[in-house]
């Protein structure tokens, strides 16, 4: 079968690999029909995530058709069209039982700090991902969800990560009616977080980034205020000023480890790898939120350490809330939002590229060429 193959930082290719096999009685094999490149895949692509081994197939956002199931699989059957949450969850451990499907204790032996994720380095369990014609899906009784018959598969593939992560980013903000919400990052997650923030009743949603075409997209899609931080002398002072010198009620970091905007953070986090990426967005979030405010983090950072103003977190009484999205918990509500037409996540998709051209697809997304917002890879045989 054809699959994406990581060869090193900024180098990927499509190549033939052996078909995945059932390795556990609760496994399924899914024939992939659509798979996205996620912004967090770029952290792997840029060599930022430790234990990313040459030869691995990335991809944690995919939908497809169940091709084969293990003897203990009862929840899905061969032929079902399913969307597969990016987190691999057993459904039985205490974390899964309490709804923390992104923190499963039985899907990743290689690190305790993160649950298993499809195609996301060996730090996240060493699973091959869905940027392939076929993929092994563990715990098929838990994750895979049959796509409603009336749902556009492009909407369905966005429900595997982008929509739940954006929604949970807003949900974790504990947004109250009338709040001012600031979102750092106008990538697909930031745009979706801005759109979903409105579900919780704020009076202002502000998105900060430095890429004009993305800010324009966010403004139109999420009906929010947008600002390019490169045109602001100091984004923190600007945000204080625009909130009556009070601070935002909620700040959301949708950027993660490859932030721009602070030379020291960039040099130590992205160039020198002395910290787990540049913590610029998180620093701005902490310093822009009001006293007693909430900072929600869905931007991805590496596992070791980051330079952030933790003293300000204490002195301002900030609550920090963060997690990988618990896709399975959120799916019923999000499917409702999509089916009702309140959310149309497929509108974020700007590029549809054959899996064979995966190297160009990664470059387009990574280099933000051709006004790219979101890229979907289509395996050719479908």
């Amino acid at each position: 079968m054809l699959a994406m193959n990581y060869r090193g930082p900024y180098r990927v290719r499509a190549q033939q690999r052996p078909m995945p096999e059932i390795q556990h009685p609760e496994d399924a094999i899914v024939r992939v029909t659509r798979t996205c490149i996620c912004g967090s895949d770029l952290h792997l692509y840029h060599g930022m995530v430790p234990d990313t081994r040459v030869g691995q197939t990335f991809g944690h956002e995919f939908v497809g058709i169940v091709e084969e199931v293990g003897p203990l699989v009862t929840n899905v059957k061969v032929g079902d069209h399913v969307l597969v949450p990016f987190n691999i969850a057993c459904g039985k451990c205490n974390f899964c039982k309490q709804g923390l499907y992104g923190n499963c204790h039985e899907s990743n032996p290689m690190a305790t700090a993160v649950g298993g994720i499809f195609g996301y380095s060996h730090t996240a369990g060493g699973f091959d991902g869905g940027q392939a014609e076929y993929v092994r899906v563990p715990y098929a009784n838990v994750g895979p969800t049959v796509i409603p018959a009336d749902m556009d598969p492009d909407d369905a593939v966005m429900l595997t990560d982008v929509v739940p992560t954006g929604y949970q980013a807003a949900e974790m903000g504990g947004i109250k009616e009338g709040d001012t919400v600031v979102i750092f990052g106008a990538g697909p997650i930031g745009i979706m977080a801005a759109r979903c923030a409105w579900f919780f009743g704020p009076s202002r949603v502000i998105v900060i980034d430095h890429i004009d075409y993305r800010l324009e997209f966010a403004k139109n899609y999420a009906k929010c205020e947008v600002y390019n931080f490169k045109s602001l002398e100091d984004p923190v002072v600007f945000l204080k000023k625009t909130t009556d010198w009070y601070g935002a009620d909620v700040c959301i970091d949708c950027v993660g480890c490859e932030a721009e905007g602070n030379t020291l953070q960039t040099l130590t986090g992205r160039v020198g790898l002395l910290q787990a990426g540049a913590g610029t967005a998180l620093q701005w979030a902490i310093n822009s939120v009001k006293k007693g405010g909430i900072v929600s983090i869905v931007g991805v950072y590496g596992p070791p350490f980051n330079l952030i103003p933790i003293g300000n977190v204490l002195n301002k009484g900030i609550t920090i809330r963060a997690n990988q999205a618990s896709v399975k918990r959120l799916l019923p509500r999000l499917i409702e939002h999509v089916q009702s037409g309140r959310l149309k996540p497929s509108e974020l998709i700007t590029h549809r590229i054959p899996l064979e051209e995966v190297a160009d697809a990664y470059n387009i997304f990574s280099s933000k060429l051709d006004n790219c917002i979101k890229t979907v890879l289509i395996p050719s045989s479908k």
Partner: protein
Amino acid sequence: MENQITDYKSIPGWGMDADPDNEPTYPMKNYTGDDHNRINYERSVQQPVTVEILKSNERPTVSAVFGTSVPPSGLSGAIRRWAFKHSEDRYRHWLPLILADRINVYEGIIDDIKKGHFPNILAERGFKATLKHNPKKIIRQVITGVVAVMVIKSMFKSNK
């Protein structure tokens, strides 16, 4: 563990101010109290370990399922094995893993050549997309390269 207090409920005031609604992880977490059962839950059957799996030393066993994508091998594999002797809390876990990743890139190139496939690095970097959507970048890179070569050449000449 010998210091663990077992009759904690007899401590004056134990649990008096507990507020089950004060759950900062709500609604992400549906608190059930199961956390106090630790790892005593019904596990799925164990996936057979058919390849070398490097396990975090912060857990007692491998998880019930795991990926078998790329088992450790070669020099990078030796470094990874060493890294996994140290906990996720330590730089000596993560930095060697990044070093192993970089070495692994060269192992990948050697492996490709051994299999008779000389990697097309330009294609793997998505050169075609840059050429189509940002040709100015390529022109800039070519000019920068030419200038750099000329500067280095002139430096060598002046040293002679």
